[in-house]
């Protein structure tokens, strides 16, 4: 009872800033609520959901987002873990590396997008210029349907990989040292002690890191808005940007809420699955 009393202010705050908007969105999603007629006069049940589910564009953005999320999470994890392992053994200038690595992470995604748009300008950008110095033809980074999504994946990696590094590094430094020494004496090579000790001990940290990154990756919006607007064609039309357009261009808040609710359900399902899978590993 006393515990409830003490935690009530923060619970109240949580309710206000998290639960209330979620409920509001769910409520909106079953109404014909648009910015032109912002009212809850018309209850339309699951219409918004049916419309969203039947919209090939929405389904396309969902598939594309799944691919994008898988690509960035897997690549960022692999790269991030590698760098974290390397940094873990570094003893000098650790803080310098930290500072350098954290720079991109601290940058606003809008700035990141703008900078990379500049770097990747096909004829005036520095990236193609540098490539031309080694004799590589200019790459159509954002203008080709085959390349654009991978360009975004690359920029996202540049921007977000530090997140993985920092979290995984924290996990690594919290690992006990003794089992490694025991393993050395037991005869484990560096690779095998990574495989048999580091990896299993890191599972909880890895699970959390992957999960957080995954959820954030699903929400990727700024990069798309700044760099491609979903183009060329529909090659980079991620779901968050699509929902944004439904809400603020089509002004159809009801349908956008329904899409968000579908997305929320997918993320929740994924989270639950990943959580259980990771638990089964440890």
């Amino acid at each position: 009872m006393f515990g409830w009393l003490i935690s009530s202010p923060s619970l109240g705050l949580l309710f206000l800033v998290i639960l209330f908007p979620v409920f509001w969105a769910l409520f909106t999603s079953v109404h014909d609520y648009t910015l032109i007629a912002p009212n809850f006069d018309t209850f339309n049940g699951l219409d918004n959901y049916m419309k969203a589910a039947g919209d090939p564009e929405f389904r396309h953005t969902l598939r594309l987002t799944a691919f994008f999320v898988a690509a960035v999470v897997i690549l960022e994890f692999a790269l991030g873990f590698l760098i974290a392992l390397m940094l873990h053994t570094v003893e000098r200038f650790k803080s310098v590396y930290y500072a350098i690595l954290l720079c991109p992470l601290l940058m606003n995604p809008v700035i990141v997008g703008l900078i990379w748009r500049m770097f990747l300008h096909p004829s005036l950008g520095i990236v193609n210029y540098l490539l031309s110095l080694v004799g590589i033809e200019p790459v159509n980074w954002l203008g080709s349907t085959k390349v654009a999504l991978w360009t975004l994946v690359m920029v996202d990696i540049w921007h977000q990989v530090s997140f993985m590094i920092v979290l995984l590094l924290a996990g690594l430094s919290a690992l006990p040292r003794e089992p490694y020494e025991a393993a050395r004496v037991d005869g484990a090579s560096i690779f095998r002690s990574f495989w048999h000790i580091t990896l299993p001990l890191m599972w909880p940290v890895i699970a959390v890191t992957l999960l957080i990154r995954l959820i954030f990756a699903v929400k990727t919006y700024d990069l798309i808005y700044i760099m491609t607007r979903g183009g060329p064609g529909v090659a980079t039309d991620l779901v968050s940007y699509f929902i944004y357009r439904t809400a603020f261009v089509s002004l159809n808040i009801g349908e956008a809420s329904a899409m968000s609710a579908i997305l929320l359900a997918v993320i929740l399902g994924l989270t639950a699955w990943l959580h259980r899978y990771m638990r089964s590993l440890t």
Partner: protein
Amino acid sequence: MLKKWMLAATLVTGLSGPAFAETVNLLMEGVPDTEYVKTLLPEFKQATGIDVNLEVVNYAEMHTKLVPQLVAPTGSYSAIVVDFYWVGEFTKAGWLQPLDERIKADNFDTSVYVPKMIDLVGRVDGTTYMLPFYNYAMGLLYRKDLLADEKNKADFKAKYGFDLDVPKTWDEYLKQVEFFTKDGINGVVNQGLRPDPIAMEWSNYLFANGGEYHDDNWKPTLNTEAGVKAVEQYATNVNKFGPVGSASFSFDEAFNVMAQGKAYSYITYNFFRAGIDDASKSAVVGKVEIMPVPGTEAGKGGSLNGAWGWAIPKSSPNPDAAWTFLKWVESPEIAKKRALQGGSPTRSDVFDDPDVNAKYPYAKALKEMLLTSHNFPVFTYTPQLVEVLGRELSLAVAGEKKAPDALAAIEAEMSELAKKDGKLK
């Protein structure tokens, strides 16, 4: 007790505020024309004693900032600027105050405005909601130095059988695009980014081929010979005659290519004409001129019109002061002063003013551009139409859809939107 006291204090300051220091709050986009208004604000204060509080944000933020204030019973903006995009939405939602009574009471002359401006950002279904602020019709930027080159002239004549000169028709222009794609220069640079850059630019192609978006009954007329040609020409220009990556360019990136002297031509907003002569941004100062986008025959233009209008929202806290400001900023003297700084006029008298023409020789071209321009469909769902255009055109440029298929898709969605809006029966 404290609450009551604070409430009283708020009331007192709120009520007494207008009595001694009226303030007009404005939300505007960070563009050159806004800067020109800013420089003149002290004159307004001197003339009327009213302060102006100008909030300047970039385009992407404007809509999101405006809507909550417009929906509220009393918002924070006294007056706003409205892109022609939003006119349908804002008027349909009933967010703007009609200005007709004020215009009549003060004998404000609206007949001096170019009629196309009034159609676009002035009157909607017979009611005046806005005063045209500045226009951003699109024009053709081209390299006059390349046109004047004797060798080019000779080569062009030999290849196409007619003289190389400022293009009189759209077909002539397309031949020039092909011709000038040589020596490390591209015949054209396009702004192929979704949604508005490509949709706006492509509209010029549509009009230049003699096409229009819809007939008088709002039935879409895009999947026509003109429409298909426009899509195919656009895709060819991007993929064959344009620089690598122009399918993803926004207007600033495309402008940079032009300003670096890497392209012969670029169809873009009129305000870039001033920028191309800015030596800090441009390597081709004095070598570029602007003209109306040529049409199917000489004298017919293919330019897309565009403009911003001044309006007073229903939620304005002080509409009278806002009207005072609108009257002042759109008065002949102030409109001329803005134009002399480089502003883009909407009034005929300013366009024809000798001082303005003396300072900006291309003012005449700008006026012609405006007069021969075509308007984009303005209705409640304009932004959505732009979104659909952007998606389908981008798909066509990427080669993932054939021109007729893309146009058919646009027509289908456009019909639906027009029906939803009650325009199409």
